[in-house]
């Protein structure tokens, strides 16, 4: 299977697109009504100062139906997933989870995934882990691997073909 299966869906799959749209409008209905824009989320947001993420605005935009604009925006990818907004929201809106949903929707509708996510996903597909075992440099500039350190062989999927089969079934599932 290829990476394309998991991360993008071609234009012709209107059924899936409709499903995504339905889910997005459900997201809009479920979440946004409870938010009264107190901006407690933004005041504690780890990504606010450096990257101008304003979770309360994300929720407000969602409420106004500007969903396409948001799945197209780079700002949804600035969240550090610290979960402070979810923890502190007096209305239990959880902007971080809304952002996860928006990012998932962006990926599912074939938008470009930023940074190394694609490489990480590819690595999971080919070996089960986000990266392969590394030889690590010590503070006196020697490189050491697991065997030299007496560590057991790394645990990873035994039958890769079967593991990939599980993931490929997931790929055709909707989010």
């Amino acid at each position, binding site marked *: 299977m290829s990476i394309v299966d*998991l*991360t993008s869906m071609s234009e012709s799959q209107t059924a899936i697109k409709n499903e995504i749209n339905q889910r997005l409008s459900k997201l809009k209905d479920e979440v946004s009504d409870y938010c009264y824009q107190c901006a407690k989320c933004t005041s504690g947001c*780890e*990504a606010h100062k*450096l*990257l101008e993420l304003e979770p309360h605005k994300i929720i407000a935009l969602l409420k106004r139906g500007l969903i396409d604009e948001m799945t197209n925006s780079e700002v949804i*990818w*600035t969240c*550090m*997933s*610290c*979960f*402070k907004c*979810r*923890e502190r929201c007096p209305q239990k809106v*959880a902007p971080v989870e809304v952002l*996860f*949903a928006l*990012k*998932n929707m962006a*990926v*599912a509708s074939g938008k470009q*995934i930023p*940074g*190394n*996510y694609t490489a*990480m*996903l590819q690595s*999971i597909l080919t070996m*089960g*882990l*986000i*990266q*392969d*075992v*590394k030889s*690590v440099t*010590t*503070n*006196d500039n*020697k490189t*050491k691997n*697991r065997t030299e*350190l007496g*560590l*057991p062989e*790394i*645990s*990873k*999927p*035994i*039958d890769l073909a079967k*593991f990939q*089969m*599980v*993931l490929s*079934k*997931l790929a055709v*599932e909707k*989010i």
Partner: protein
Amino acid sequence: MKKYALYPGCVIPTEQYAYELSIREILPLLDIKLVDLKGFSCCGEPMKSVNQMLTISLSARNIAIAEAENLDVFAPCPMCHLAMSECKRILDSDEKTKERINSFLADENLKYTGKSKILSILDILYDDEGLKKISGLVKKPLKDVKIAVHYGCHLIRPSEIGRPDNSENPQKIEQILKAIGAKPASYPEKLDCCGGLLTTNLPETALTKTGQKLQAVQQQGFDAFVDVCPWCHRQYDSKQTKAGETVATKLEVPVFYLTQLIGLAFGVKKEKLGLEFNLSPVDKLKID
């Protein structure tokens, strides 16, 4: 003797050897046996932005592997622990999703039932018995070492999912440190995020976050900085020099895994705790 399946995840066994070595060294001293199982994969949490179904399925898959051996799971990486705890919370309360996930797992002859518990590093080290055991084993107390504690976001939030310590005022690591003679002190930036998860798409900003926190710790005159997460440790220790460059400060903060400090206090040799892998100036801290 308690027995757990060790779920190492991705970052610990592929590069953060210091954490793995120190865990394997000190847990047996606390009468805890770790069982290595074959077949684990990523916990799925790093992929949550891409596809949440993938996250839940991968977590369920790993829990199912431990369930097949009738073992509870010890996940030292807080991110893995969060992914697995969230997966458990969803699947244990939603029969339909559980069935759907199990239909995927059937290809590998695995089945999630929900019988195994998921334990974090704090669940393992901290309870009344654990603290007593720890203080009883101390041979070289870290006398008066002033330590800044970093919990890491995933260990304490979201509390709704069930996390091992309080989300706004966590104190368990401080208590463990007191049990080994050290002097943990609070600081305003204690709950700040390391930025590590941004490494995937905004690595420079990630380093700035890291640098800002270490800068504050350095200014406040701490002797050491302690963490329990391989993602955080990679930022604070492995990349400390670079993090310093992004905030235009020469950072010289000794950064340790909690398990390394416990090991040092127990009198375990430096080599066995993987101290050679700490790239921050850990030699500044003299323990004898």
